[in-house]
C-alpha cells in the first residue's frame, strides 16, 4: 500500500465530491468542511455509483435506492444498505490529494 496523488485539492470545493480511479477501484473523494475523505464509489446494497448522489454534511446518498452512508467512516446509515463501504486513508501534500490505495 502506498499513497499516490489522485487529484488536486482545488478540484474539490467544500461540500462536493470528486470521482477518481485508484488501481482497479473507483474512489470517491468527499470534501466535508475542508477535510477530504475517500470511500469506494460503489453502494454495498445494489452496486449503485455514489458519485451520482448528494453529499449532505458527512452523509452521502446513493441515488438508486436512497441508502445513506457516512463518508467519514463508511458506515451504512439507512436501509436498504446494511454493509459499510470501503474507506481509504487520505493525505494532503501541498495541493495534491493522495490516497492509500
Amino acid at each position: 500500500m502506498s499513497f499516490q496523488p489522485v487529484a488536486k485539492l482545488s478540484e474539490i470545493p467544500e461540500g462536493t465530491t470528486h470521482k477518481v480511479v485508484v488501481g482497479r477501484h473507483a474512489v470517491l473523494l468527499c470534501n466535508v468542511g475542508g477535510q477530504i475523505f475517500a470511500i469506494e464509489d460503489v453502494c454495498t446494497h445494489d452496486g449503485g455509483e455514489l458519485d451520482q448522489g448528494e453529499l449532505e454534511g458527512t452523509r452521502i446518498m446513493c441515488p438508486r435506492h436512497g441508502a445513506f452512508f457516512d463518508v467519514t467512516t463508511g458506515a451504512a446509515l439507512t436501509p436498504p444498505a446494511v454493509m459499510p463501504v470501503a474507506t481509504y486513508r487520505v493525505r494532503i501534500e501541498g495541493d495534491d490529494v493522495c490516497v492509500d490505495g
Partner: protein
Amino acid sequence: MIAPESLVEDYRHGFHDSEDSYAFKSAKGLTREIVERISSMKSEPAWMLAFRLKAYETFRAKPMPDWGDTALLNEIDFDDIRYFVKASEGTERSWDDVPDDIKRTFDRLGIPEAERKFLSGVSAQYESEVVYHSVREDLAKDGVIFCDMDTALREHPEIVQKYLSTVIPIADNKFAALNSAVWSGGSFVYVPPGIEVKTPLQAYFRINTENMGQFERTLIIADKGSKVHYIEGCTAPQFSTASLHSAVVELIAMEGASIRYTTIQNWYRNIFNLVTKRALAYKNATVEWVDGNIGSRLTMKYPAIYLMGEGARGEILSMAFAGEGQHQDAGAKVIHVAPNTTSVVTNKSVTAHGGKTTYRGLVEIHKGATGAKTRVKCDALIMDDKSSSDTKPTMKIDEQLSTVEHEASVSKIGEEQLFYAMSRGLSEADATAMIVNGFFDFFVKELPMEYAVELNRLVKLEMEGAVG
C-alpha cells in the same frame, strides 16, 4: 357459475357518500405548488416542507419500475389523480362530533361496533386525514403515543424528525418518493421502554373520492423491551376509474421489543396498491408482519424485516387471493445482518376466475451473520385453467455458517377432498370454501376474531362458482 359482474354488484362495500361537503380537494395531477399547498394547509414546520419538496423532485426523476407487472403499472396516469383531499376541518375528538355522512360510511364498515366492544383505541382514516380518533386512557397513562401522523408531527416533532424516513429513505423507490411528497394521515405509535400494549391498536383505511390517491404514512417505534400489535384493515367502495394507494410503513423494534403488524387489504378491484413496508429489528427484538391481500387490481407489496441485532427474529405470514382481473404481486424480504438471527416466511395464495398471484421473495444472509436460520415456505392453489401463479424466491447467502430451508408447492384443489366433502352433504361452493379456508387457516388463526370471521366470509364469497 357466478358472473364477475354480479360479484361487483354484490360487493358489500360498493357504496359511496356524497363528496359535496369536502373541505378541500386538490386539482388533479402533481405539481410543486400542490406539494407546497399540502404542507401549508397542514401548517407544517419548514423541515417537513423541505422533505416533501425533495421527495417530489425524487419522484419526478425516478423511472417507473421495470420489473413486475409493467403492463398494469403503466396504466397509472399520475396526472389523473388527486393527491390531497381534506374531508373535514381538523381531527374530531369524540364520535358525536364526526359528520353524519362520514359516520354512516363507518357504520357500514363496523367501526362503531369495534368501539363499543372497546377492544382497543380506534383510529379511522377517511380520505386523506384521520377524522376520528379515540385514545384509550390507559394507553396515555403508560406513556404510549397513538395518534395520526399529522398530529404526531404537531405534538411530537422531535420523535418524528428523528425516525421518519430512517427505515425507508425517500429515494427507496418511485412510490416511496411519491408518498414522502404528498403523505397525509396514517398512524404514529410510540411505546415507551418495558411497556406492553395488551390489546391490539386498530386503524381503518378507506378510499372514497374517485381517482384519489391515498398516501398514508405510518411510523411505529417500540422502545426497549416493549410490545405492541397494530392492525390495519382496508375496504374501499366501488369506482369506475383506477385509483392509487401508496403507503409507506416504517417499524422500529429496539432491543428486546416486539411488534406485530397485521393488515387485511381488501381494496376495491380498480385500485393500485403499491406499498412499501419495512421494519428494523435490533438485538433480541421480534417483528412479525401478518399480511392478507384480497382486494385491489394490482398489489405490489413485499414487507421487509432487517434483522440488525444479534438474536433478532422475524416472521412474515402472508396470504393472497386473486380473482378476475387481479394480480397480487406480494412477497417478503428478510435481511439477516447479525449473528443468531432467525426468520420464517410463510406465504399461501389462491387464484381463481383468471386471477394471478406472484410470490416475490428475498432472503439475504450477510457475511458475519453466523448461526442465522431461515425457513421459507410458499404454497399456491390454482382453482381453474385461466388462473396462474408464479413463485420467484431469491436467496443470497454470504455466510457459510447459516441454515436455509425453502420449500414451495403448487396444487389444484383435490377432487377427492371435494368429493368427500360433498358426499357429506355440502354443496360444491361450501366444500370449496371449506377447503380454501383450511388452506388459509395458518393465517386466519393469527387474526383477532372479527377479522377472522370477515376473512372466512370473504373467502366464501370469492369461492362461489370457482370450481366448475
